[in-house]
């Protein structure tokens, strides 16, 4: 994993350099060109990642540590996947309903809460946030068809 991250960082560094070269990384007519500074950044990213990669590869023998255990990864994914769904849902049904579904689902799935317990939390949290943002601070958050139908 150490090596993979170092490689990804190197790729990002290369990307930065590539775009800087397109913009001009040298000294232009009126001074430094737009890519002047990023070019150096890109070079430094690659250099530092090369060292990290080398260290990771040399350490391979002997003390190879596991990045994440299987059951740990499962636990993390059990948070990550619902969150991805939640964020995708925001675009369709608005943040408040997506939030209610997300909190309810999460409590039911992880905490094995019964409907009596997860429903109040899942309803109250979005409701409080709704009052706080839409009415008190007047900051509009993404809303879906249901809120529109209610006249917001």
């Amino acid at each position, binding site marked *: 994993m*150490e090596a993979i991250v170092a490689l990804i960082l190197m790729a990002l560094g290369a990307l*930065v350099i590539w775009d*800087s070269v397109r913009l001009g990384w040298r000294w232009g007519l009126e001074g430094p060109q737009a890519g002047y500074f990023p070019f150096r950044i890109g070079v430094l*990213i690659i250099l*530092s990642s090369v060292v990290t990669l080398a260290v990771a590869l040399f350490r391979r023998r002997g003390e190879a540590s596991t990045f994440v255990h299987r059951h740990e990864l499962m636990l993390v994914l059990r*948070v990550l996947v619902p969150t991805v769904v939640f*964020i995708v849902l925001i675009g369709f049904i608005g943040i408040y309903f997506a*939030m209610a579904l997300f909190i309810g689902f999460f409590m039911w799935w992880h905490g094995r809460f019964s409907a009596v317990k997860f429903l109040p939390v899942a309803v109250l949290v979005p409701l409080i946030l709704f009052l706080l*943002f839409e009415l008190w*601070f007047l900051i509009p958050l993404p809303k879906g068809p249901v809120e529109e139908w209610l006249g917001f």
Partner: protein
Amino acid sequence: MDSLFSLIDGFGVLADPANILYMMIGVSLGVLIGVLPGLGGANGVAILLPLTFSMSPTSAIIMLSCIYWGALFGGAVTSILFNIPGEPWSVATTFDGHPMAQQGRAGEALTAAFTASFVGALVAVVIITFFAPLVANFALRFGPPEFFAVQLLTFASFVGLDRSSPFKTLASMMLGFALAAVGIDIVTGQLRLTFGSHELLRGFDFLVAVIGLFGIGEILLSMETGLSFKGAKARINPTVVLQTWAKLPRYWATALRGCIIGCWMGIKPGGATPASFMSYGIAKRLSKNGDKFGTGELEGVVAPESAAHAAGTTALLPMLTLGIPGSPTAAVMLGGLLIWGLQPGPLLFIEQKDFVWGLIASMYIGNIAGLIVVLTTVPLFAAILRIPFSIIAPIIIAICAVGAYTVHNALLDVSLMLLFGVVGYIFKKLSYPLAPLVLALVLGDLAESSFRQSMLISNGSLAIFWSNWLVGTICTLAFFLLFWPLISMGLARLRRRQVAVEAD
């Protein structure tokens, strides 16, 4: 003397009851943020920053800085009661704080921690009051090369002082700079690193990055360990507080040492965590009960807490005077200042007197308010920690999403937040430090423009960074810190060789 008069004016700004109200709200929110896992000072302030856009800058910064004080206090609660450091600088507090709580002396440990923090913060604020105007005055003479030199010093000290691999620090920092470069180049107006995407035109907002890296990343990390809070009971009553206060004066030397270490380290970036460890270590070595440290010594709580708070507070000094934040939270506040159209730096002390002195005065009152709030509400916050993680986690994720959205009212930011969350999780697991990334993201544009301005002045010659004694000293110091890991390695090897020679 000028400082004193200005400070009195500052208290005048605070007399507005609305500001006092914001202060109390800020402190309470801050403690809550400090106590909850996955929410820390930096992303707490980041989430709440958009809410303050409708306030006046003075009220807003007072509330935000009070959130910061609250978070600093709150970190100690989790360390002592649950052995879970809420913030990296409260790690040293767990060493003696948690054993005390296990022995049923939680109230004592908490009182000592809060009081020590309060003293540390107070000393630091006094230093800011008298020292900041001097630094600002001095910095008025700074030109672009000097500013770049100070920024270089900031970043170099990260590489030199961080305990993780210097190359990882460098990579994380440069990634921050690269992300900061995305968008429209301020000098030439060209599009950089956008690859034709309109959404990327805005660039990466550091607020979104902070919320993702620290908030979501933290949740993922704590989920992995299957977090279950098993904490000691907290009960604080006036008798315990008074009894502890009666004992505390004995440790004045430890506290004073903590304050000095904290103030000294806090001015440098990322100082609070090393300061707390250093103070703990020195107290352990110098104390009569040093060998009992780690088993529940009151002194072992006083030492790291006073240093951490002093450092956390003085981190605001370079932010106000030079525009260079000393901690991720200070970086977020600096970003807030920029959004309100206030350019942090020496001119702030001349052009925005009310703002600066109002803020400094609020540091005094905010810390007093913080002490009162934490002493009275600890049982409440400890009860919040007993709420199962499966309820807290989705609510925090949802609030993070709201926070990320409100920065620019853009849905893409919410997805970016999640991406940063995953990056934060992976970086933390591989011990890439996150603070340099955030700092580089905030300071990226400033650092780049001061670098380019210096290059323009000198016509592309790097010699400008050694053109006078001021900039030369700062740059040399920066390079010294940058190569400190190498230097200290070399010194250690030399010493070992000497020892070997003597042994022969």
